[in-house]
Structures are given as structure tokens and as C-alpha cells.
């Protein structure tokens, strides 16, 4: 029984029960506006965009780091991708988004290692820089993706790209040293160093991987929305949190050995809750309150420490 309670299947069952619970709840409250197969498909399509970012964030959150520049990078990479797509088509679009994203990750990781200050401080500072850089690159103009380049705006393009990203994440976690070393660094950096792990190198790789996934998220985001406008004054901050919620699910369900499915299903649960409130006609503020509370409840019920244990 104890083995089953620690198994992947058990973790997956908890997630499935949560999906069914929230679906049933909103279906009961608003049977006509919510939860048709077409609706669910639509919720799923919107949630996988955040799931991709959630996968990227997992690499650094599990090491005990944080990144406030995710939103700024989505905007900057989208703008760079759209501008390059005008000249080089799909290749320019994808290479622009992914290349810019990864370079940003490289820069963040490099500065974090060199400055030796907390990741939160480094990324808040760089967020402001990237926001301004995006305005400069876009020339103050809204960037629109050409209609001929919108394969990833809906199914099957978005689903294919997202699932390629999930497969990549699964491969990295299970079949490379990176996944093991990120977990080891998060567990005890001192021991990890003593095991010969180059901690700085793997933190740099963590940031690069995060922002590579952010680059993929940028492709999906600008394809879905078709335009991207550069904003300053920390306006990109709000884009950090939706993918982060999925990451929380991933970290919480890590003990069951299936963080990726937890990120994907977790984002889907958030989407169900969010759209459920939309269907109920609740104001956005209420939706945010309830989504936040639901996240806290879910993570508390699934991942909280034992009573009396220390939680930081």
C-alpha cells in the first residue's frame, strides 16, 4: 500500500480526480455555458502554452532559484521572432523566438553566476532591461505575425509543438545528467559540489533551458494572439505567474515521479477553474481570487509538509 501511495499511478490518479472534481463542479453550476467537449478542447489548447513555460521554470525552481524575467522574455522573443519572420518566414520566426529566448537565458545565467546575488534580484533588474529592449527592437510599434505564418496558432500546430516541448523535457529529465544534477543542486548544493557537479555550469544550463522553453512559449503565444506589443514598467510581470502555477504542480508531484504530467494537468485544472468562472460571469477580480485560492488549496492538499515540519 505504501509503495502504491508513492507510485506514479497514484500521483496521476490524484490529478485525474482533481480534474473531474472541478469539471463536475462547474458543470453543475453552469451546465450550458461550460464544459462541452469543444470547450474542454479549447481550455486545453490555451493551457498547453503555459505548460510549456511551466516545464522550463521547473529546471530552476527545483534548484531553489526564481526568474522574474520570463514575461519580459516572452515579449522580447516574440517581437524578435515576428521581425525575423518577415524576412525568413517560419525559419526566422522559430529561430528568432528560440534563439533570442536561449540567449536571454544565457545572459541571465551568466550574470547570476558572476554577480553572485539572488536570482530574484538579477531577474527583476534584467526584466526592466528586456522590457526596454523590446520597445527599442519593436520601434514602439505593435508587431503582427503574418497570417501565412500562423500554423502554431491552433490545432494541430500548437499541440504538436507543445508536445514536442514536453517530450524534450521528459528526455532531459530522464535521459541526461541535467535533470539529476538540477535535483541534486536543489536538494543540497554543498553535497552536489562534493560529488563533482559543476554547480555554476548547471545553473547556467538551467536558465538556458528555461528560456529555451520560454522561446517555444513565445512562438505559441504570438501565434495564438497574432500580435505582440512591447510594454515597460514591469507590465510583463503578470506573464510570469501562469506558467509558474504549473511548475508548482510539477514540484509538488515530483515525489510521485511525474512532474511533466503534473505541470500539464495542473495548468489544465487552472484553465478549467478560470473558464468556469468566466462561464459563471464572475468579474475578473473574483476569478483571480478564486484561482489563487484554488492553487493554494490544491498544493496544500497534495504537497504540504508533515504537521510540525519546517516549510520555507
Amino acid at each position, binding site marked *: 500500500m505504501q509503495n502504491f501511495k508513492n507510485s506514479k499511478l497514484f500521483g496521476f490518479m490524484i490529478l485525474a480526480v482533481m480534474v473531474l472534481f472541478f469539471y463536475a463542479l462547474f458543470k453543475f453550476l453552469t451546465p450550458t455555458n461550460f464544459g462541452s467537449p469543444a470547450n474542454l478542447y479549447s481550455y486545453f489548447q490555451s493551457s498547453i502554452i503555459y505548460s510549456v513555460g511551466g516545464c522550463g521554470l521547473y529546471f530552476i525552481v527545483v534548484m531553489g532559484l526564481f526568474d522574474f524575467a520570463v514575461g519580459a522574455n516572452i515579449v522580447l522573443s516574440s517581437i524578435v521572432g515576428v521581425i525575423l519572420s518577415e524576412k525568413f518566414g517560419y525559419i526566422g520566426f522559430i529561430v528568432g523566438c528560440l534563439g533570442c529566448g536561449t540567449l536571454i537565458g544565457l545572459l541571465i545565467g551568466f550574470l547570476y553566476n558572476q554577480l553572485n546575488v539572488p536570482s530574484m534580484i538579477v531577474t527583476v533588474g534584467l526584466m526592466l532591461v528586456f522590457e526596454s529592449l523590446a520597445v527599442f527592437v519593436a520601434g514602439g510599434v505593435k508587431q503582427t505575425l503574418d497570417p501565412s505564418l500562423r500554423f502554431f496558432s491552433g490545432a494541430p500546430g500548437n499541440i504538436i509543438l507543445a508536445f514536442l516541448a514536453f517530450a524534450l523535457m521528459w528526455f532531459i529529465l530522464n535521459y541526461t545528467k541535467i535533470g*539529476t544534477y538540477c535535483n541534486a543542486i536543489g536538494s543540497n548544493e554543498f553535497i552536489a*559540489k562534493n560529488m563533482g557537479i559543476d554547480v555554476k555550469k548547471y545553473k547556467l544550463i538551467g536558465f538556458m533551458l528555461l528560456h529555451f522553453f520560454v522561446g517555444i512559449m513565445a512562438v505559441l503565444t504570438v501565434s495564438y494572439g497574432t500580435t505582440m506589443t512591447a510594454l515597460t514598467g514591469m507590465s510583463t510581470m503578470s506573464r510570469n505567474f501562469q506558467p509558474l502555477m504549473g511548475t508548482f504542480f510539477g514540484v509538488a508531484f515530483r515525489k510521485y515521479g511525474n512532474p511533466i504530467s503534473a505541470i500539464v494537468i495542473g495548468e489544465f485544472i487552472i484553465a478549467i477553474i478560470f473558464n468556469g468562472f468566466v462561464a459563471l460571469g464572475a468579474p475578473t477580480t473574483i476569478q483571480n481570487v478564486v484561482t489563487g485560492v484554488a492553487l493554494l488549496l490544491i498544493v496544500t492538499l497534495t504537497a504540504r509538509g508533515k504537521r510540525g515540519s519546517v516549510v520555507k
Partner: protein
Amino acid sequence: MNSENILLKAEGIDKHFGITHAVDHVSLNISRGEIRALIGENGSGKSTFCQMLCGIYKKDSGTFTLDGQVMNVKNQVEANNMGVSIIVQEMGTLSGLSVAENIFLGHENPFMHRGIKNTRAMIHEAQRLLDEYGFKNIRAGSMIDNYKFEDRKLVEIVKATYMKPKILIVDETTTALSQHGRRELYNIMNAVRDDGRSVIFISHDLGEVLEHCDTISILRDGEYIDTVNASDVNEDDLKRLMVGRDIGSAYYRTDYGREISSEVVMSVRDVSVPGQIENISFDLHRGEILGFGGLSECGMHEVGKAVFGASWDRKGNVTLSYGVEINSIPQAIYHSVAYASKDRDNESIILNESIRNNIVLPSLNNLANKHILSRRKLNRFAKEFADKMQTKMQGIHQFVSDLSGGNKQKVVLARWLGKGSDILVLDSPTRGIDIKVKQAIYALMSELIAQGKSIIMISEEIPELLGMSDRILIMKDGKINGEFMRSESLNEEDLIAKMV
């Protein structure tokens, strides 16, 4: 010693931590096929010496030569690759990783092919090793977090020995293991020796050292003292070599037949903690040392937590003489109850804080003047009690993490002395502590009961229970199974009969 038979040659190994000379030009040789104990008081430099050998610390000067090859390793993996591995005193496995990932951490290359890890092969190989060692209940593919401390120690043993190191260092590991785990470890040590390789064994348990080691090297204050054959010495000889003088008779209390006050200072009634202890009832008297003994998992450690209000799901009553019930830690501290946990580093001390801040912590309310704290007053207070405990330190602002186990325990006791606690719950007060500090702690305990303070002493060491307690309660399977009064005729067999 035949030079061809020398496996490890340490020459002039030297290390400073700030102004502390932790290892002072130590030179020693270890032969092939021997189990060498390294003993000394806390802070004598034995762990530091070994940690330099396996790359955890960088030495200031000196040379390690292993099998004719000079070692200049920067981390444990490099040391492993040269043939040195270590099992550490505290937790050495990493959460969030599988058992297999822990075993092969830093050594994944045999399972890598063009950057891709063959996870299945890694798990298969880890399981083969676990089965071979007889640890079949541990599954290589499971997360390490699913296993208890002792099983994780067994995983560490596999990790440290599967690659057949030339030198295996076992640093104070046995205290974390049950009898079964200890037996397995001794078997592994013997197998290493029989294979012509060598073991460096660090332990404070001199009986264990004499029983399982061939030779014994003694360090004192960072200096090499001597190496002796285990068959030529006894425990008293070793104590003398470790301390530098005869510590003889003043080790435990010598008083017998002392009248214990009838005044009950703490009354414990029907205390239960689900899955740990059941219906525990006893009275603690003024000026009494009440010993709790039993096998490691008998529940005695939970009793300490329960009476201090640190068990969240405790049932039953813990009542002080003036009727106050203790149900939480703040209540306990407020009403002059102190607790020193067996898990010193995680539950008793704040490692990344100064000695001063550790000592003043529970006394801040008393030291504050209208909520304002005076640094001078705090410094004076901390220094007074650190000095009273004869803490070996650079100053009260030194971080506790730099101290040896014995000195950390002195800081814990200084904290409660400063608080003026009347009831002290001391769980394994001398765990992993050398005889000189032990002697000091025993002397302190005698002084405290003479002042009318009361002590609950939980201990896994039977001689300590017999030597220090006025009364001993033996626990078995979460219940009290026997009670003994202090007596010269009381012996270990009497207690063991009630433990098993």
C-alpha cells in the same frame, strides 16, 4: 612497516580554519589490508583529516600518497576515482533523486552514450548492487525520499563501496544504524580488509573500535599522538592517549543511596503519540536524574519531545508541580523546561548562526529592556555561559557550524543554563561526543541536580544510564517495560532483559 605494504602515506598534512589549527602537520601511514581506527576528542582533527583526504576540504600543506600516486583531489568524485570513498556522519544522500541516481551521482558516465543516459541500465545495476549487499527491501527506481534515515545510510554504504575503493573512510556512521545495519557495515569493512584494501574507521565508541579495528591512531588537538595495535591496549589506555592524562574514576557519578526528594516537579500521565508511544506515565522529582533507556526505536526519543510539547499529535497530560499543563514548546520554555534533541544539528542548534545568537535565543525576553536589546548585554550574557561551559571557540561571534560536535552540545547546554531552566530534557546528551566533553557534561549534570534542578536523560548508552541516573525507566515497543532504582548492584544485563 614494510614500505611496499604501505597503501596510504600522509606527510605533514596541515589545515587551519581561521585561527584554529585543525590539523597540525599530521603524518601517518596505513598498510594494505588493515582497519585503522582514527580516534580523538571532538575537535581533534580526525574528520578534517579524512575530509582533506577525500577532497571535501583543501589542505593547506602536506601530501597524501595513495599506492605510490600523489593525490591532489578537489572533490569527492576525484577522490573516488583515485580510490578513496567516505561514508559521512550525517545524511549523505540527496532528496529528489532516485536511489539509483544517488548511488551513481557523479559517476553516470558508464551509463552515458553520446550524452544520453541509459536510465534503465542504471536502475538495473543499482538494484543488482543493493541485492548483492543484502538490501533487497530498497528499490533502486524509487525516490530516496520514500526511505527512512537508516535505509538511506545503507544506500550510502553501497554508494561508497561498490567501486571497491582502496581506502574506505567510515566517519561516525554506526550511531545512525541499528544492530543489523552495523553488522552489515562491519562485514563490509572486513571484506575490504580481506581483499587487501584498507578502512579508516572513526568512532567515539572505544569498545567498538577495539573490537573491529586492527590498529588505532590517536589525534589530539590536531596533532598526531601515536598508533597502537588494538590487541595491545584497553579502553583506559586509549582514553589516556586521547586526553593526555588519566581520566580515571571521576567519569560517572559515584554517589549511591542518595535520598531523592519526594517533591514531584513534573507529572506525566497517559501520554501517547500515535505509532510512537502509548500511555506513558511517570513522575519526575526535584533534584533527580531520571534515565530513559531502550532500543533505538522503542519510543524513548519521542517521550522527550512529548514532555517538551514538541509532539503535535500528543494525547495525555504533562503537568508541572504548580498545576500548569505543558502542551506546546513556548509554554514549556516559559515554564522553565529545556530540551536538547538527539538530532543536534537539525533540532537543537542553528548552524548558520553565531554562538552568541544561539545562546541568547530563548532568553531574549529576559534580556530585553522594554523590547530593546542591548548588544553589550547580549555579548556579556553569551560569553558568560559559553565560558561556563568551557566552549572551545574563537569568540562568541564564531558560527556554530565551525564547531565540533562536543562544542555544539556545549552551546546547547549553555543556552539552557542561561535561561535558568529547572527541568532539562536531554536526549542523547553525549551522542558523538568525546570523553573529555562527556566528563564535563556529566559533571554539569551532577552540579545541576545538586542545585535542585531535575533532568530527564534519554540515552542509548547503558553505562551512561547506569552511571548517571537516580532512576531508570526502560521502554519497549512504545511502553514502559521496567523501572530500576540507582544501585551499585544494578548491571547492564538487568536493563537489557527489559529492553529486548
